[in-house]
């Protein structure tokens, strides 16, 4: 699976997610608008942390693959 496939899959997943989000909007409003919207900040910080972790995970896999091919030599 090359990078293009991954990006395409990500876009497709995001599109699938949109109607599912819409159903939960009502409930989400109650949660996120309470206590002065501090939960919006938590959500944003969590997204950033998860995004960075996902990228580090990818780098890790690349390194493992390099190690594997070096071991074969």
């Amino acid at each position, binding site marked *: 699976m*090359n*990078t*293009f496939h991954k*990006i395409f899959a990500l876009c497709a997943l995001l599109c699938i997610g949109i109607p599912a*989000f819409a159903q939960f909007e009502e409930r989400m409003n109650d949660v*996120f*608008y309470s*206590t*002065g*919207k*501090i939960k*919006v*900040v938590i*959500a*944003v*910080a969590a*997204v*950033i942390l998860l*995004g*960075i972790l996902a*990228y580090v995970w990818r*780098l890790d896999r*690349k*390194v493992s693959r*390099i190690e594997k*091919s*070096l071991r074969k030599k």
Partner: protein
Amino acid sequence: MHPVLKVICASLLLYVAVFSLWVPMVPGLTGTDKREVKPGLNTFRVYGYRTHFSQSSASLQAFLEGDSVYYCTEVQALSDHELAVECVLPDTLSAPIMSVYVNNDTDGTIYLPLALRTAAAAISSGKDAGRCEVKVKNNVYTAFGFPFQPVIFESIRNLMWHVPMWFTMFFLMFISVVQSVAYMLKLQRKPSGEALDRQSGVTALVHDRRAAAAVSVGLVFCILGLLTGSIWARFTWTAWWTNDPQLNGALVVFLLYASYIVLRATVEDDEKRARLSAVYNIFAFVMMVVLLMVMPKFVASLHPGKEGTPAFSSYDLDASLRAVFYPAVAAWILFGYWLYNLRHRISRLQETAYEHIP
């Protein structure tokens, strides 16, 4: 990357993570229970956030402000965060919309702009009849805290999370375009007429590798910026996405650089790929500057950051915000550089491991 830079990056990130959440908000008003005022007696509730209405009820005052200021005759604190207000307004009101001021010794003067509509029948273009010339005390809240802004509330803290993503992306794309230009210059420096010899052609590929690494890390920050921006927009503008020049520009920038990655994947030959993607990269960078920094300034937009340098001069960047925001930008740029460093070292290793280098 020098170890000292890594230590600085880590400690700045820690500082930002802690203080962006720890620093309290200054007191503010979140809303009223009614949306409209009329001539005569009005009773309504005012809601506060981190306020001390009961604690300093002795010094409580409330005002309505339209074209002139109306003193509220009865102000009663129901709790620290709720006020019951009675206000007698004259028969004719010239302002179509009024703001609410609440004043006490602890919280200072706090303000809810454009909170109450004037009932349509009461608006007259003439002067207000019973003017009430009470001077509004303007006490300043002195304790340290992030400014309280209507609608945004606590989510002003996102300034330290969402905005540095874009700064980091810009920084990485800048590194990338510099590497692409360096690659083109290396190619040009060959003796005229002669074909570039094999060895220097391969060494020039270092710049191509670095350019690609910077874009792939920059794209991560671009995606994070888009996602966090979308979440923030949902709870301030009530929509995940608005047709805003700044937002659409950011999306186009994402697509531009995503197609850079796609372009690289389609070319087999190393040097052809390097040359093609270097040209494309320079084009993409120019487009990014136009889309994110130039174009939004000429179109009306909800997104802040239209005056001067984006983000730096926007918001009410007071001292409390700046004390965390500037370190946040530095921390994320350093972190982005660190990831870029790892990424291009990995692609160098990939080339030796998979034997692309002859």
